[in-house]
């Protein structure tokens, strides 16, 4: 029994290195998508201390809007632009209707408000778009759909080009975001807001503008995530549940760290795939990806309550 747990999986890994690489690649791609969702969370949390539970449904909503517009006859790239407009309108509405009346309330109230937003968008989305699975307009957007085949170690490694594209776009997005936050005036304002609301307001930074902007950026991230994920798995409300995976990423990476979100996402993506293939399926009956990431994050937090990247919390009285 012990050897089944501690020895055989590693033997399996080493004896078929091309398969191992395939597993790691699949995990990496999932990880990138988790990281993107976590990024949206981090952005909103840093600037407003709101834990935006609705980030997941925003991904679905963005993807559905895109596909819906295209189905209605709008050309692919114009659909993208229009969807961005919809996400902006969403950001604006959320700020107006939900955030502004709740300024100053405790964090848990704001968190629950985002749960309310999630529900609302689910119901609303189902009515407008219908509940059937849809196909992402991958080709129409110009994303290549072939595979690239490698033959490492005499074996077989197949990388889907849409995954490679997703990875590349995600990387560009992250770089762009970091540049924005660090080099532009708006970006600095966002970071200032995250540190201290009152101080930021007192130097003339408008809370409302920043919040709309931040939620809009989160919306852009949601759209990119929706396209990337929809291309892999189809577009449906099931996507919303996958967004839960971003939560252990946040536990590991800390709620405030962009690099934490990225590293955490990649780690979780790869580790959960590894566990499922080499331990979950042979030993536990499979389907462990529903809970592995959470358990992993839980264990890490027990030893480091601030996550892998967070700052040590010193209690003051």
């Amino acid at each position, binding site marked *: 029994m012990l050897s089944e747990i501690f020895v055989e999986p590693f033997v399996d890994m080493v004896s078929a290195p091309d398969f191992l690489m395939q597993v790691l690649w699949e995990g990496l791609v999932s990880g990138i998508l988790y990281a993107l969702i976590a990024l949206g969370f981090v952005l909103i949390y840093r600037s407003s201390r709101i834990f935006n539970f609705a980030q997941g449904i925003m991904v679905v909503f963005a993807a559905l809007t895109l596909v819906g517009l295209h189905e209605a006859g709008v050309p692919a790239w114009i659909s993208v632009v229009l969807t961005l407009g919809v996400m902006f309108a969403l950001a604006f509405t959320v700020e107006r209707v939900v955030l502004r009346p709740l300024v100053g309330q405790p964090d848990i109230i704001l968190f629950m408000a985002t749960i309310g937003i999630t529900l609302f968008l689910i*119901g609303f989305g189902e009515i407008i778009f219908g509940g059937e699975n849809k196909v992402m307009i991958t080709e129409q957007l110009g994303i290549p759909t072939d595979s690239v085949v490698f033959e490492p170690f005499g074996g077989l490694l197949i990388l889907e080009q849409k995954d490679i594209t997703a990875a590349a776009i995600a990387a560009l997005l992250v770089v762009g975001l970091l540049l924005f936050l660090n080099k532009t005036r708006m970006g600095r304002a966002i970071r200032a807001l995250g540190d201290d609301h009152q101080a930021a307001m007192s130097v003339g930074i408008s809370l409302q503008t920043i919040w709309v902007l931040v939620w809009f950026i989160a919306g852009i991230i949601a759209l990119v995530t929706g396209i990337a994920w929809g291309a892999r798995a189809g577009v449906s409300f099931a996507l919303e*549940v996958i967004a839960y995976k971003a939560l252990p990423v946040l536990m590991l990476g800390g709620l405030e760290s962009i690099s934490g979100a990225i590293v955490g996402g990649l780690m979780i993506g790869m580790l959960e795939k590894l566990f499922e293939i080499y331990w979950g399926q042979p030993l536990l009956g499979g389907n*462990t990806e529903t809970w592995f990431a959470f358990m992993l994050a839980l264990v890490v937090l027990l030893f480091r*309550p601030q996550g892998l990247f967070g700052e040590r919390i010193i209690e003051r009285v």
Partner: protein
Amino acid sequence: MFYRTAGQFKTSYTADQALFPVRQDAVLLIVILAFAWIVFPLTASEFAFQTLLIPILIYSLAALGLNILTGYAGQLSLGTGAFMGVGAYACYKMVTLMPWMNPIVAILLSGVFSAGIGVVFGIPSLRIKGFYLAIATLAAQFFLVWLFEKWAWLYNYNASGAIQVPNLDMFGVYVSGPQATSFTQYYVVLAIVSLLTWICINLTRGRPGRTWKATRDMDIAAELIGIDLMRSKLTAFAVSSYIVGVAGALFVFMWRGAAEPNLFDIPLSFRILFIAIIGGLGSVLGNYLGAILIVGLPVVLGILPEALGLEITSATVEHLNVMIVGGLIIFFLIIEPHGLAQLWRLIREKLIIWPFPH
């Protein structure tokens, strides 16, 4: 005029700390109890039992359990559904392994199992706080639902993976299974819910309640006045999970009649959370009010289109229900974050001075 409290003086601390120091409140409660125990069961239709009366009671109990943990002790939990499942499966195993056991005893014992597991998953709360803890409770949620599916012993190796409630009787009367009447089941549920509610009222108005509220409001100060945070939090997890587990057993045995693992998934957890939030965190009454709203809303929405002569599919009604609940949550959080219970308190205060404006 109705709620005139003038003239009602308390001359001892015992009287002051009584459950209903104001006479009108006691009268109101007696009226409600009369309806619950006598009027409703004698006049309700099968539809009313199955879609309103029984589920409202069961959801109230589950929300009460969650409220103890999240509303009173301040530990946010998103895993309520899974713990209901633990209670349900524990009860199932007990009645199938020990068919001689009194069904009500089995139901009350099943809470012990969920309490135990609740304490285990509550241990991280000693190191982890706030949102991180909420995410940790999701670990319990996802893991347990996976377990319900994979551990075939739990459902007696049944090929469908589901559990069916057997016919169980007590003193010759069937209380569960296809042979039990809604009438009987309603009384069983009412009795258990009343008992546990009474216990929770006692706990929350005394030292345990204060300890939990102190842990919630300012745990550092709580520790510095001598509260053992570990005991406080783990007790909250234990009591809360016990109640939620019993609610889970009632959920399956007294209402649904059967269960599959995905019954206890995230949507159930969130449903209970909404009831607790909309009803009012940190209150006992709120759970009932919230349950009435959340259980009653889809029923009303189902009847309304016919009454208004509109043509809406039942799927759309379902989606509208979801939208409205989401909207209601936001609405309540803006208007009255302390929920329906607080609204009731405000109405009551107005009634006390009515018809005078101040």
